């Protein structure tokens, strides 16, 4: 038979990919879910059963409402549909209620909410500079779609561990796409909405602030790219301010009387430099560098007195996590203020850079990724899931530039691997390995094919580091549990994973910075706003 040319219209592959991943998500309905499932069930219950005035005071369950009000309204909306699945899940007293209908409803709500993410990805594909490829599999838009829709981290965090990140990242990516399309008001509105859905996105607010101020409020730049002070547009600034303020007032308005309570829930005072499982950031390396056997001992003590139940180690929500004292002996102890200063210092050069020499929307995106990564690297009590805030926006840059593709590969493979401890059950082990291999093989081969001109994408050192993840996985999940030390030092594989991945993440951070600070030549070709 003669091979006919593809007759499908250009969009059917997108639909096929979206449908395919949705089917996969449906198959995972029965998989393990973490305590985050109960968190969201509790929020469904309390928003449904109680008046809004009590939402931030309710404390029957330990999983109190710690997301901003718009998310609470979102849960309220969901609860009206939940009624038709199982009324019992909406009773606040039904702690840990997980009937099959409840599981089905909650899982489906995440899957359906991902429609926002699909739309955002479609919009992002439109923003790519060039979209030519010999065949479908080599098109940048196709590669970007798979990298985002089939992102390993998003799949396992949202559809196994259980969260609503797909929906939230959809709003973020849509906002970014709007900025690419020069629809800045919409982009700003979307970001304000996002901040009121989950306040962790404050990490990247500086990037938005500086970019909008520099590139939007100042309507023109000089020929060499520097600032033209006279082109300041008050109208734009005021409009932006109105948009942001009105969004916040709609969101926090009903709770204006209880603002301190709400804020205390959103930003709980908590000691503990690191989460129970150390996110692979600077502080993981810092802890190790300290060579303090006290840390090791304190972990051991907790295990002995069952204060740190290993099965509960990867805590789900932002208010989860256990109180831990990290007494560093050799190096100075780290306080929350110190981490804030470090974070600010780490992102300051990037902010200066886009103020001084903005690179249009792409420069903004690069700065956004750096802000996300900097906050991840130096932040206080960071969850390992926060790495997704850097990986997902970076995908957009990865399909357009060789250097970004290389950074993306290192960051995504390392970052995704660091999520493995989230799924610690034996049943999910094959799933996480298969999906990880799926995403890794695809990203490696497709980006390699996209940038085949100019030699290998990864240098030997980087390749060796990434290959080293295989023996690491074998040791941590297969060999170590069979040894004697599993009972006495059960946390050792987790520490090893954190530290090994921290190296990769730090390396990616440094490279990203270098690429931002040295990309001066391309600015002249690209027009700024």
């Amino acid at each position: 038979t003669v091979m006919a040319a593809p007759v499908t219209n250009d969009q059917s592959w997108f639909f096929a990919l979206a449908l395919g991943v949705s089917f996969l998500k449906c198959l995972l309905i029965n998989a393990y879910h973490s305590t985050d499932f109960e968190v969201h069930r509790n929020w469904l219950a309390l928003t449904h059963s109680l008046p809004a005035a009590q939402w931030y005071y309710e404390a029957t369950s330990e999983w109190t409402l710690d997301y901003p009000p718009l998310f609470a309204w979102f849960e309220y909306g969901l609860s009206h549909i939940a009624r038709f699945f199982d009324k019992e899940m909406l009773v606040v007293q039904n702690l840990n209620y997980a009937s099959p209908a409840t599981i089905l409803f909650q899982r489906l709500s995440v899957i359906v909410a991902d429609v926002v993410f699909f739309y955002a990805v479609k919009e992002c594909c439109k923003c790519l500079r060039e979209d030519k490829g010999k065949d479908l599999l080599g098109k940048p838009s196709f590669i970007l779609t798979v990298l985002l829709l089939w992102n390993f981290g998003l799949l396992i965090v949202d559809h196994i561990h259980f969260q609503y990140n797909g929906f939230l990242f959809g709003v973020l990516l849509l906002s970014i796409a709007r900025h690419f399309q020069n629809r800045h008001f919409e982009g700003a509105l979307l970001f304000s909405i996002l901040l009121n859905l989950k306040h962790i996105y404050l990490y990247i607010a500086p990037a938005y602030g500086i970019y909008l101020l520099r590139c939007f409020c100042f309507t023109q730049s000089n020929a060499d790219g520097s600032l033209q002070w006279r082109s300041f547009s008050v109208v734009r600034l005021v409009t932006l301010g109105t948009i942001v303020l009105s969004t916040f007032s709609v969101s926090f308005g009903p709770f204006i009387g209880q603002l301190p309570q709400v804020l205390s829930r959103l930003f709980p005072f908590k000691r503990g430099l690191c989460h129970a499982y150390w996110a692979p950031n600077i502080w993981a390396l810092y802890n190790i560098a300290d060579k303090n056997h006290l840390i090791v001992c304190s972990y051991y003590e907790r295990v002995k007195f069952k204060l740190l139940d290993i099965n509960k180690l990867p805590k789900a929500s932002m208010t989860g996590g256990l109180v831990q004292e990290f007494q560093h002996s050799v190096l100075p102890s780290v306080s929350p203020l110190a981490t804030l200063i470090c974070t600010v210092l780490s992102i300051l050069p990037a902010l200066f850079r886009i103020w001084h020499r903005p690179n249009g929307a792409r420069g903004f995106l690069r700065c956004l990724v750096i802000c996300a990564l900097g906050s991840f690297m130096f932040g206080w009590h960071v969850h390992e899931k926060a790495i997704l805030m850097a990986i997902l926006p970076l995908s957009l840059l990865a399909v357009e530039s060789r250097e970004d593709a290389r950074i993306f590969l290192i960051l995504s493979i390392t970052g995704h691997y660091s999520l493995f401890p989230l799924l610690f059950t034996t049943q999910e082990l094959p799933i996480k390995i298969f999906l990880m291999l799926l995403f890794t093989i695809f990203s490696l081969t497709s980006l390699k094919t996209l940038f085949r001109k100019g030699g290998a994408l990864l240098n030997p050192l980087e390749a060796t580091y990434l290959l080293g993840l295989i023996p690491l996985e074998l040791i941590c999940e297969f060999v170590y549990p069979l040894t004697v030390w599993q009972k006495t030092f059960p946390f050792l594989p987790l520490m090893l994973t954190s530290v090994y991945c921290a190296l990769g993440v730090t390396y990616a951070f440094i490279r990203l910075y270098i690429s931002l600070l040295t990309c001066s030549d391309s600015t002249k070709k690209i027009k700024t706003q």
Partner: protein
Amino acid sequence: MENWSLFSLCVLLGLTSRWAVSFHSYSGAGKPPMFGDYEAQRHWQEVTYNLPVHEWYFNTTNNDLNYWGLDYPPLTAYHSLVCAYVAKLLNPEWVELHASRGYESHSHKLFMRATVLFTDILIYIPAVLLYCFYFCDGSSKQKVATALCILLYPGLILIDYGHFQYNSVSLGLALWGILGLGLGWDLFGSLAFTLALNYKQMELYHSLPFFCYLLGKCIKQGLTGRGFFQLAKISLTVLVTFALCWMPFLSDPKQPLQVLHRLFPFGRGLFEDKVANTWCSLNVLIKIKTLLSRETQLFLSYCTHLGFCLFLRLMFFLFVFFHSMLPLLVKDGLLLPYVVTSLAFLFLSLYLLSALERSTEEELRLGIYRKLTRHWLPKLNLSRIIKWKFWFSLVAMAVLSFTSVWLEPPAKFPDLFPVLVSILSFLHFLGFIIYFNLVQLMEPQRKKSQKKTN
């Protein structure tokens, strides 16, 4: 993107769906006293591990044949024995004689599911990959698409990883047999197929075409010269394989007789449960294949030169067959994976069909029908009729699925829906037999020329 990466992505997708389906229930879960196929497999591990070989197929005080007695050939028993050794290492309670009856636990389920996955990876998946790589016509994209379709076929996934069976072993071995013959390695092919036969006696349905093909090949090479020599080598391979598999049972003449009695229980009715129990369903499918093979001795070359479009037609046929398994799967509590995998498979096949081949009359091999109907119904737009029929079938299957699950049958006809499902499936099968046979009979020339090019 390179071939190896595309193929590995297909394999990983297949493996992921398999393991995800395995999260769901299995046959007979929590249903004493008999439970289901899952308990049968566990029981065989218990029997083969604890009892001596000569007791496996006999009714003794230690081995009650009424409670899931062994009724597959020896290779299944050996496979169960190997699994039992591993089970013993992990948790001896799983294969404790008598005491482990009806044993159910999360870790045991994981172990059993893992054994299925292991054999799948070892035997079935490599065979599928090699088949698609060497024997499928078309571009590499079509080969990858074929592999993906085969690996995502919901029937095998749900029966093996849901209901619980080891069909991937016997089907995989049979496929290795086909591969061997297709590549010209007759001895290897015969060996593989004989092993398949010794794993599940249902492979007997496929044995006739194998036999006819090899006999025909030897005759072609001249029965007095090389052909005879070849025939002797093949026969010897088959006999030695049989002997090796049945060796422990050859000491006493009563042994092989008892085994055969267990394998072919002509005393019992084979269609005890009119709701398509697995044997019944597979039986229908294999009957179809038998009919196909009886019509022509070129069955194997037909298999190895499946045009991509024809392949997708075959996939639809298999999909209808899968639909007929609905009552069984609902009984096992596998409704969700049934719905998801069948929809996924359907959409994938439809998408690939439209993306990789134009659906013209020629591709549909409708030329034959044209010739037949030209005299009687000249104004018929045949391709449109086929399309309508296709959508109508889908709607009918969807409606039947919905009613089977959610509506109560009228009191006078309690088995109404399963019977309707069976009837609908049978009608489809009949249509497909006619279609495939017509295709085969009317296009011998094309196949001969293709066979030469491979």
